């Protein structure tokens, strides 16, 4: 027992959490007692004796679990535990539940955790659709309903879509650029372990007085500043997810800039690497804005600040400006890595170089720059200065141009190729092109102020965001998971089940989200538990498709679990791809490469006689002697 308490792990983590939470609780109680205040403040926006432990508890868990061990020992002048690589690799499933600094283990930890939250949040969506299947109130009351869609969106965005791209890239990106690991492995592990905390906070808010946070994932003030305790769980969950996201983005930036293998110039990087470079640039600059916005709401709730309290001289609309300054770029944070995945999959399965590679990379950078200038298109009817609408409309419509470039370039990649559609990853990539085009088109419509005035805050918005985030992001996530499943697990998945999942998902997505455009334009507002009779039939249809869409995800789950355990062994390169991760075994060796590869050409040179992307160890006499100092200087 003593040993368990001394050793980093779950026991010490639980102990750390309890002690730190008790410290936070004691601090609040003691300070209030000294100040002569009532010990417990239970106004709905108060509860400092809950909120403070909610900060200290998770930090105590992270410390106990071992996330800070190396740094703390070093800071305290104690002998650091030498990195004997015992924390690398996973020998059994138990190793995935430990603090591990191996980027491949962390990648899988991310993906599995994110899918856990995907299914939880999917269940919330099923409840939402069950309630909306008929007009009137059947299953949940209006207050609970508001909690359902708020947590559904928060979980899907902050602990599924945003981080799962970090998870996929965590696994794949160091391999792709020929690096042995990420630049900061301990920071990488810390980033991961902050995520489940955020997710559990979102879910945990259902259990507190007043119920889950119910001001929407947008949490507009002053509805959020006056909301019950659950809102504080959202404010703090976003901090953990945001910190995780920022730390990972820094890690990717440093890894991509400094750890590319010799010869991997920027213009030889696979587009997935370009995509993650762009995404990371967005995350490090934009995410602090939502963290700040949520802290300001928390302070308004708890400390009596007046950021967004109109009665105290605060400005209500400034919340929306700060929030959307992150949350619009966030849409691209949720799309650009997916663009990268699609480029890899389409080029490989069309057996052809990416059409217009440089323009593809530049389009990503163009999106990064433009996406900082479009946030107020979420606020055309918000009552902000009206002159701001037209400039924001122009930038919003212009951002369709680099996005269009990507669509056309993928189509160009297919022409004169040899297109193979046996892989579910390729199917999802092709469906993504069509579905995402619809989301892009409705986005252009929403960018036009007069149309937006009518459909803003209606089901048209719900339709648009799901075409973009489900037909866009989630399709690319599935494409990525299917594409790299053999690399990650060393097994092949079942393509027949993959096809069932694919067709079910495509039909479910279109059936669920397409009619939402119509009911929205015709007068159904979003975020309502009840609606007019006239929309009854459409909503019933939407719900039926939604249930199908939900059910078919179980096929995916089954396929992944069973194939991981029993699937046929995968070779190192089942898709005959060029990039470096496919030139090592599946799964790759613990340190990725026996010798750092040397990059001699572009990543998509299909059909070019004699072209190579990288020379691996054992490829022949040309291989340079491994020189460890080269890593990090490339």
């Amino acid at each position, binding site marked *: 027992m003593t040993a368990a308490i001394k050793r980093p792990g779950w026991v010490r983590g639980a102990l750390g959490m309890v002690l730190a939470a008790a410290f936070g609780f004691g601090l609040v109680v003691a300070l209030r007692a000294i100040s002569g205040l009532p010990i417990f403040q239970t106004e709905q926006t108060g509860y400092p004796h809950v909120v403070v432990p909610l900060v200290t508890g998770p930090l105590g868990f992270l410390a106990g679990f071992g996330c800070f061990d190396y740094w703390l020992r070093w800071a305290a002048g104690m002998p650091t535990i030498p990195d004997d690589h015992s924390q690398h690799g996973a020998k059994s499933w138990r190793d995935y539940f430990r603090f591990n600094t191996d980027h491949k283990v962390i990648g899988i930890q991310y993906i599995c955790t994110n899918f856990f939250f995907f299914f939880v949040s999917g269940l919330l969506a099923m409840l939402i659709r069950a309630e909306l299947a008929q007009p009137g109130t059947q299953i949940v*009351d209006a207050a609970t309903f*508001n909690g359902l869609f708020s947590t559904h969106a928060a979980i899907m965005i902050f602990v599924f879509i945003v981080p799962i791209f970090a998870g996929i890239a965590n696994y794949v990106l160091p391999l792709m650029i020929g690096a042995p690991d990420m630049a900061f492995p301990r920071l990488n592990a810390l980033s991961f372990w902050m995520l489940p905390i955020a997710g559990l906070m979102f879910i945990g808010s259902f259990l507190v007085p007043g119920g889950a946070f*119910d001001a*929407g994932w947008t949490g*507009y003030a*002053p*509805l959020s500043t*006056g909301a019950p305790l659950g809102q504080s769980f959202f404010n703090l969950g976003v901090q953990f997810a945001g910190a995780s996201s920022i730390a990972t983005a820094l890690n990717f930036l440093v890894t991509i800039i400094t750890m590319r293998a010799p010869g991997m110039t920027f213009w030889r990087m696979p587009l997935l690497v370009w995509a993650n470079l762009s995404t990371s640039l967005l995350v490090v600059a934009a995410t602090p804005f939502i963290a700040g916005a949520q802290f300001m709401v928390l302070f308004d709730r708890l400390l009596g600040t007046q950021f967004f309290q*109109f*009665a105290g001289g605060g400005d*209500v*609309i400034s919340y929306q400006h700060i929030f959307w300054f992150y949350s619009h770029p966030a849409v691209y944070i949720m799309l650009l890595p997916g663009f990268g995945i699609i480029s890899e999959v389409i080029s490989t399965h069309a*057996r*052809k*170089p*990416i*059409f*217009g*590679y*440089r323009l593809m990379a530049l389009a990503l950078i163009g999106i990064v720059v433009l996406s900082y200038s479009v946030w107020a298109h979420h606020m055309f*009817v918000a*009552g902000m*200065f*009206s002159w701001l*609408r*037209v400039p924001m*409309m122009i930038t919003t*419509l212009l951002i*369709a*141009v680099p996005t*269009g*470039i990507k669509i*056309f*370039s993928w*189509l*160009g990649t*297919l*022409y004169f*190729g*040899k*297109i193979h*559609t046996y892989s579910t990853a390729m199917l999802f990539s*092709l469906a993504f092109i069509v579905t995402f*085009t619809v989301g892009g088109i409705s986005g*252009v*419509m929403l960018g*036009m*102020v007069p149309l937006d*005035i*009518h459909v*803003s*805050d209606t089901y048209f918005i719900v339709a648009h965001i799901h075409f973009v985030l489900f037909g866009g992001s989630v399709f690319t996530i599935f494409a990525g998971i299917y594409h790299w499943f053999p690399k990650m697990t060393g097994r092949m998945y079942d393509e027949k089940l993959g096809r069932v999942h694919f067709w079910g998902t495509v039909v479910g997505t279109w059936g669920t989200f397409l009619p939402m455009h119509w009911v929205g*334009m*015709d*007068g159904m*507002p979003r*975020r*309502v538990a009840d609606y007019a009779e006239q929309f009854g039939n459409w909503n019933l249809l939407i719900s039926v498709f939604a249930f199908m869409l939900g059910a078919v995800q179980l096929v995916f789950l089954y396929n992944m679990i069973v194939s991981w355990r029993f699937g046929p062994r995968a070779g190192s390169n089942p898709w005959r791809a060029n990039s470096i991760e496919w030139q090592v075994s599946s799964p790759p060796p613990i340190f990725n490469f026996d010798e750092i590869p040397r990059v001699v050409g572009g990543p998509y040179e*299909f*059909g070019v006689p004699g072209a190579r992307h990288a020379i691996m160890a054992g490829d022949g006499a040309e291989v340079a002697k491994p020189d460890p100092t080269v890593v990090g200087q490339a």
Partner: protein
Amino acid sequence: MMGRLPIAKMLAATVALTAVISAVMLPISWNGQQASTAAAKIDTLLDVMIVISAFVFALVVVVLIYALWKFKAKPGDESDGEPIHGNTRLEVAWTLIPTIIVLFGAGYSWSVLNDIEEPTKDPLTVDVFSQQYAWSFGYPGKGNAYSQGELHVPLDRQVHFKMHSLDVIHSFWVPEWRIKKDNVPGITTTAIVTPDKAGAYQLICTELCGFGHAAMRAKVVVEPPAEFRRWVAGLKQKVPPPYMETIRQNTETDPIPLGAGGA
């Protein structure tokens, strides 16, 4: 390389598909009944966008389906495609043409926006008060007459709605008018509407405002001026003093009424 593609046939197929989609979609009045001067203009903009969007969608679908039909690998074929890395002319084209299209869309939208928010000489001003979960209305030109849950406005006269929220953000939407504006605590926002069709409509709150959000509705009646005058004259209540205080205290973000073109 381009010469080997049936460009004319693909273009014809795209145009044909565009025509089919447009023919199906244009006759439907997606936005519902039109009851303000803005409605027809916004719906025309929508129709133009439907045709442009149908073309873009058709282009993507036709090009994709043709590629899948023509360039699909035979089973067992392990050879690679042709090593084409790009085509500068094509890439410039699909950068410039969409830019021109979206700039056209922006210009057109801007002109529609100016059009629908153009103030007229003799507008009627109506105060809108929103609170969880009810609407009420004041008529400053009529001695601050006050009505709860029911809004009356005269036919064919521009109305300037001055929006005031007493608690959280609400949003004022009458779908038939195509006009929406948030009611923001602390500031007064403005919406301009010229109702041009008599009848009864529904005012819907479209900004999440709490558990009663879905039920936060009010009745809107558009009637000939004489009937409107009779109805206002029949209102017994005046706008309550705290509400008048709210109007006084609120700042107006847009002293010049909306007008992207300015006044």
